[in-house]
């Protein structure tokens, strides 16, 4: 293995695992005030939406709200399947197929 890649992997491991492990260890030991608890309750929706929106609406860091952005179109059937089935596998599968179809269609 190339030493640059090895150093990179170790560095990435530290900055990934520490932020995952430390809050879990600390916050499961202390009593958390209800206000903080309700703040944390909004985190799942907030983080996932913040991750998703740029994936669909940005192309090379620029807003791509036009009709020829295939990700926007492919998101629609994926959203529908996710909403109706709540099944991750079907959602990913339908999203990928829709992406192939729309990329082909819009090209």
């Amino acid at each position, binding site marked *: 293995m190339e030493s640059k890649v090895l150093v990179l992997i170790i560095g990435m491991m530290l*900055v990934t695992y520490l932020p995952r492990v*430390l809050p879990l260890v600390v916050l499961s030991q202390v009593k958390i005030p209800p206000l903080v608890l309700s703040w944390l309750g909004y985190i*799942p929706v907030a983080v996932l*939406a*913040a991750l998703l929106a740029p994936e669909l609406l940005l192309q090379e860091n620029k807003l791509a709200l036009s009709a020829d952005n295939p990700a926007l179109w492919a998101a629609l059937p994926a959203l529908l399947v996710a909403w109706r089935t709540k099944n991750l*596998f079907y959602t990913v599968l339908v999203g*990928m197929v*829709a992406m192939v179809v729309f990329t082909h269609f819009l090209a």
Partner: protein
Amino acid sequence: MQAKIRQKEYQDKEKEIQNIEIERGSKEKETQPKQKETQSEHKETKSKRQEIIDGLKAAVPIIFGYFPIGMAFGVLAAQEGLTRWEVFFMSLLVFAGSAQFIAVGMLAAGVSVAAIVFTTFLVNARHILMSAALGPYFKGFSPKTLFLLGIGVTDEAFAVDMAEVKNRPRSADFFLALHFTAQFFWVFSTVIGAVVGNLVPDPQSFGLHFALPAMFIGLLLMQIKAQREVVLALLAGALSIGLVYLLPGKWNIILAAVLTATIGVILEKWKVKSSSSL
């Protein structure tokens, strides 16, 4: 009104967690006759097995989602010149889908190791929030268990964990089985991708690059139970995109999440106040 119900839900949840804690504590202190002890031990191992099986089952949709994403990563990494072993170790030791994609892209562009590691930190800083949100539900787990569980707090495992703890209390075995099954298949699928990497001329023609966004769609929809959450999701998405324009780097995700959760709490408080004054 809704806010009040929500608050009550939280209080109930807190009580529930405390009850579990009490149960655990009393189990340790109990001094029972020997026969009874072995009986309860037997019962516990049985339920332990059930928890592990349930954890494996809960991992199945994640595995199916990981496969195309992991394959896509392996293919991309192989095309950018990473060996199969490098892909294996990165997936095993970093275990962070989107950060791995970004890192391989930056590596190919000749960016320094320090810059890639810092970007990884920013991209994965959202897991601080996720771990913090899970913490209250993992009370009473040993530090070693928490360490092992923490390693596997990916977006996907977190979303499934959160959906589960809202339904019923689970033992550590459930989460350990879920997290490590997911990790195993993540590593497996990326290595498969790296092996077949050079056989796939154009990964885009298989829609592989849309596997991750589609996964996020599924995970997000799993979390949405009320109208307010739809509003907050739209707000977080808008903030995340707006912040891309305002700030360089990858600060947008964590900042958008922090702002949205804060606004969510403010809206909740404000609604409770306005409905109680009526």
